[in-house]
């Protein structure tokens, strides 16, 4: 009953610590970035730009936030490809399904007279 066969995990070796320190800087930068983007978004919606333009910018910004949190905070960038696949498949199916669903249901299907609430 000995553990000789199994090498222990590297716990706090030097290189490990170094990479964690590197990550610290990434995390700080990212946090600043995310805060700034949220500020920009808030201001943007009140600006008198063309609606499509604002919409596109908002979409891009939130996509960036989304991907950034996954890639760095959630370590997906440093982790196994398998994990990206597991999550990515779910994300892809969810997005695809709901784009399709959104375009399948339209106002022309609705019997507005039957609705008493508004």
């Amino acid at each position, binding site marked *: 009953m*000995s553990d000789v066969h199994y090498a222990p995990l590297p716990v706090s070796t030097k290189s490990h610590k170094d990479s964690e320190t590197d990550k610290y800087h990434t995390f700080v930068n990212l946090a600043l970035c995310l805060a700034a983007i949220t500020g920009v978004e808030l201001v943007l919606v009140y600006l008198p730009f063309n609606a499509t333009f604002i919409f596109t910018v908002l979409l891009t910004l939130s996509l960036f936030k989304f991907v950034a949190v996954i890639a760095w905070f959630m370590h997906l960038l440093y982790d196994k490809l398998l994990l990206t696949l*597991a999550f990515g498949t*779910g994300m892809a199916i969810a997005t695809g399904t709901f784009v399709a669903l959104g375009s399948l249901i339209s106002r022309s299907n609705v019997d507005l007279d039957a609705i008493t609430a508004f």
Partner: protein
Amino acid sequence: MSQTETATPAPKTSHAHQLHVLKPERSRLGLMRPDHSKSVFIDWLTTVDHKKIGIMYGAIALFFLFIGGIEALIIRTQLIVPENNLISAERYNQLFTMHGTTMIFLAVMPLNSAFFNFLIPLQIGARDVAFPRINALSLWSFVAGALVINFGWLLEALQMMGLFAASGPTAGMTDLAPSGGWFGYAPLSSKEYSGVGTDFWIMGLQILGVASLTASMNFIVTILNMRAPGMKMMRMPVFTWMSLVVAFLIIFAFPAITIALGQLMFDRTFGTNFFNVAGGGQPILWQHLFWIFGHPEVYILVLPAMGIISEVLPTFSKKPLFGYSIVIFSGAVIGFLGFAVWSHHMFTTGLGKVATAAFSLLTMAIAVPTGVKIFNWVGTIWGGRIRFTAPMIFSLGFVWMFMMGGFSGIMHAAAPADAQQQDSYFVIAHFHYVIMGGIFLALVSGIYYWVPKVFGKMWTGSLSTWVAVLIVVGLNVTFFPMHFLGLLGMPRRTHTYLEGFGWSTYNLVCTIGSYILAIGILLLLVDLIRCLRSGEPAGDDPWDARTLEWATTSPPQVYNFAKTPIIPARDALWSHKHGPEGKKITYEDDHGHGIHMPSNSWMPLIASIGFVPLGLGMTLKQAGVPYMGSLAIFGLFVITLGLALWAIEGPGGFHLHPEEDEA
């Protein structure tokens, strides 16, 4: 028969050291873990062994197959002659709803789970699943969900005896068992049109969803991470592959129905407007959400069956599976495309031309990988040395019957044709050919194939031939005429019909067929019991099979493999028996480390039991029973308590040394 040397000597319990570690140790909680050596009953209740869990799944599934079968026979008996009045229309609705729900969620899915549980760790050379306690949680929450969903029958009985009447939010409603169909279409399932039965249906399915989701995540991790050395992805048995695809389908398809059921529950309980037309709700949204789940669900049912077939046909043709990688690839494609065809269940709702055409084409496209598989199976038996054993007969039946179901499927894929077939008996014929003729025959084939491994007993006698003949004849006599009934305009879910519609003879034939089918299934149970009681010892590899599970003893020891096998090739055991030197299964030396076994635990059982008061509290509250809100909160408390103790308890575990006696 086989020259396989197995690596599974029985553990020697007389060894002093051994006895010491087998005693249940204290958990991190400070409590003793359940002592599985004291009582068989406690052992089974607290087990985390995937094989025992698989056997329990199988037994419960067979029980519900029996219940669902009785429901079906009552339905068919009601339809035997025109204007029959054996049961009331309301009871008829309850019976077809519960028949469909029971067969899909409580019979076929758990029977699939039984195979997953028993076989996957053995097929990939693992000692257990990745999370043995989560596996026990899945089993017991499945049982809890089954109880909740069937609880309505008890209330119905009480109501008939005059002991119970619904009050509160559903006052005046007399349908206390689910009656909205297995797809519970809104607004029929809303509070205005259905009683507390629908609440049982909602809560029961939610709990079953927990069981399926946890089990699937567990099995994906098991298959991806726990394979024995050398068991590369493209060496895995096809059954394991198909299970992997199914598990992915479950984790991505079930959330849609979970949310839809939650919305329906909110509509019924809190007066929200998700599907309430007066408030702007769109019942069509329910249909979409249901079928976003529902279509992947039919592949969740059928892919394991395809996996079973892909194991049985090669074994009894003495040939490797024809086009192994194509079979796997088309399984994955089916899984993926399965998410893109749901609206073919809704052609007649007026999707619009573009959407109808798109879903029509995609549905036809999904038939391609299905057809590819059929060709591969035919290619497998082509020129093989075929042995007509019981598993083989059922598998051949699968290929034939499933194909017929596929044909009518392609017929509904054409939207204009489907406009005639939708909601008629033609659809009933279609899905019973794929489910009874396909999935059920494959599952029976699997039972005949693997029972010798599970219990170490070999089948005796030739009853199996009778079972096969009766089931195949029965199902064709029952379901083939339904195609004509559908084309003659008989709608599905009809309580009764009038004389001169030209439906009478067909209905009579269908009903006769259903009794033949029932006798076949009863004989199957008889054969099973006979095998378990008086079967000869099976030996490790009675069929001269190909995959790794046959390299262990029958039944396998708790630890599956005494030493971790190293897999040399696809069809590992075949290569071990007949392959060249260097392509034999070898075993890892564990340096006396022993086998690490997980400890039994009460916590999965406790947490799952909590689902029963939670589910019943939430539902009975709708029927105006007092104190039910508190009961639901109590249930939630039990679940939380179980999970909290689970976390504190720690995984535990002990070591076995099966070979120490040799040293």
